[in-house]
């Protein structure tokens, strides 16, 4: 790890003051914010970022708050994954969020890891993580995964980078209709969480979200889901702890045995949490049976273009969709 100076400001104003300017794109990594450090320390050790200063968010009071009002939740950026996982009221009202938090890493990672850090974590593509591989994501000219070893890469939404977004919370919170509260030098703004994440073809290919260099994520607001049932189903190569090979965040409102409203978001298959709007529409008015699951699976994976080593993700994702929908219909 290259040396840096460490600071712990005590207000958000001070935090954003320390960050680069909003258009300071070239030198934005001069200062990095630290939350739980479970991703950032790995990046520092692999020399993927070499900031001059690390700004610990933990001196800012109230950022870890997790509060509920009339079924809607406000989740502070510093709330830990363990806090979400262990909150019985959240598990009851927004099962998918608690399940997604509980599926992250190991006990230690969930004790330290935070919601903000989970949503803002960097990709796990092994070329990205290799100090010497300067691919497109790191300002180079080529995606090494595209023609290389791409077992863990994207089947949807890829190009020119083919990462999958590594966050488990992201698909769950997008399915829950969450919004992100962002703070920069000029003040606050809110963004639908679905619009927070950017495809490599639409945003800067070297980033995964809309945050400007002077901005931090402050809070995630999740609307009430009264009458909904939801789940997060994740498939890992190894069951002790691992990132998702594919995952499904699903929420249904069922009336009289038929789906009245649906949300379906895939994880582990695309550079962003992959919202399946066609599949959601197709679900409305149907009962959950084998035929529905088949139709929905086809629509959800429509347009998928597997690379040389990841076609397995197609049947895997379809299987997980069936599993999630069946679980919700019988719950």
């Amino acid at each position, binding site marked *: 790890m290259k040396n840096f100076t460490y600071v712990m400001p005590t207000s958000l104003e001070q935090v954003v003051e320390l960050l680069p300017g909003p258009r300071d794109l070239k030198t934005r990594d001069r200062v990095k914010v630290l939350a739980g450090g479970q991703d950032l320390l790995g990046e520092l050790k692999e020399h993927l970022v070499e900031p001059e200063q690390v700004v610990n968010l933990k001196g800012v009071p109230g950022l870890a708050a997790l509060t509920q009002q009339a079924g809607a939740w406000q989740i502070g950026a510093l709330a830990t994954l363990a806090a979400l996982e262990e909150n019985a009221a959240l598990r009851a009202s927004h099962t998918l969020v608690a399940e997604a938090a509980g599926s992250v890493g190991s006990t230690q990672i969930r*004790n*330290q890891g935070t919601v903000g850090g989970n949503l803002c974590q960097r990709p796990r593509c092994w070329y990205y993580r290799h100090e010497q591989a300067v691919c497109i994501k790191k300002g180079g000219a080529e995606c090494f995964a595209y023609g290389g070893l791409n077992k863990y890469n994207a089947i949807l939404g890829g190009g020119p980078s083919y990462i999958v977004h590594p966050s488990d919370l992201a698909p769950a919170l997008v399915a829950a209709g969450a919004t992100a509260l962002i703070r920069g030098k000029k003040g606050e703004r809110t963004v639908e969480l679905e619009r927070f994440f950017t495809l490599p073809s639409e945003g800067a290919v070297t980033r995964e979200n809309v945050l400007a260099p002077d901005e931090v994520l402050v809070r995630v607001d999740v609307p009430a889901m009264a009458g909904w049932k939801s789940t997060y189903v994740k498939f890992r190569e190894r069951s002790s702890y691992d990132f998702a090979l594919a995952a499904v965040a699903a929420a249904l409102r069922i009336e009289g045995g038929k789906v009245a409203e649906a949300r379906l978001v895939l994880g582990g298959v695309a550079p962003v949490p992959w919202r399946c709007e066609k599949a959601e529409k197709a679900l409305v008015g149907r009962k959950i049976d084998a035929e529905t699951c088949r139709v929905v699976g086809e629509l959800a994976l429509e347009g998928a273009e597997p690379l040389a080593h990841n076609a397995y993700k197609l049947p895997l994702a379809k299987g997980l969709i069936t599993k999630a929908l069946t679980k919700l219909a019988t719950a």
Partner: protein
Amino acid sequence: MRRMAEYRLEVNGDSLDVSAPDHWTLLEVLRYRLALTGSKQGCDKGDCGACTVLVDGKPWLACLTLARSVVGRRITTIEGLLPAHRANGGSGADPVQAAFDRCGALQCGFCQPGMILSAKALLAKTPQPTRDEMREALSGNLCRCTGYTQIFEAIESAVASELGLKPAARAWGAPPVSCAARKDGGA
């Protein structure tokens, strides 16, 4: 010359003055400043759990923690268990350490400090854990030698010796084995 930061950490009940560069991890400070080498450096990137310590009672990875970020927090390392046990009026070793010893839940021992601290945190939260709860609680602690069954048995043995209960049945359904009763230490 690298700039040194001066700060104080609370480790195993002691307030200790530290002088170290800002970018040092808690693991580096424990091992190379405070000479507490019980916490091990395995992967140094969050994968193995050998560096696990307790921060305010919860298992944390010392290799993924900046030392300065835990100023003011209560840090427990493996070295702290015996003195804490004795200070609470106990005799012999800490009951979980003793059970790991009794059950032969180690070979090279590299994973042990982390395993035992994760097990301590589990037992503080769930005094009589099931095998599934143990598996989940220890999923971030890798052991390349022993196999996990003896480790689970050690936890059950610790529970048994504390509460006078019988350890649960073995994972594969064989008759319950009390490690405590094994003369060979379970090896």
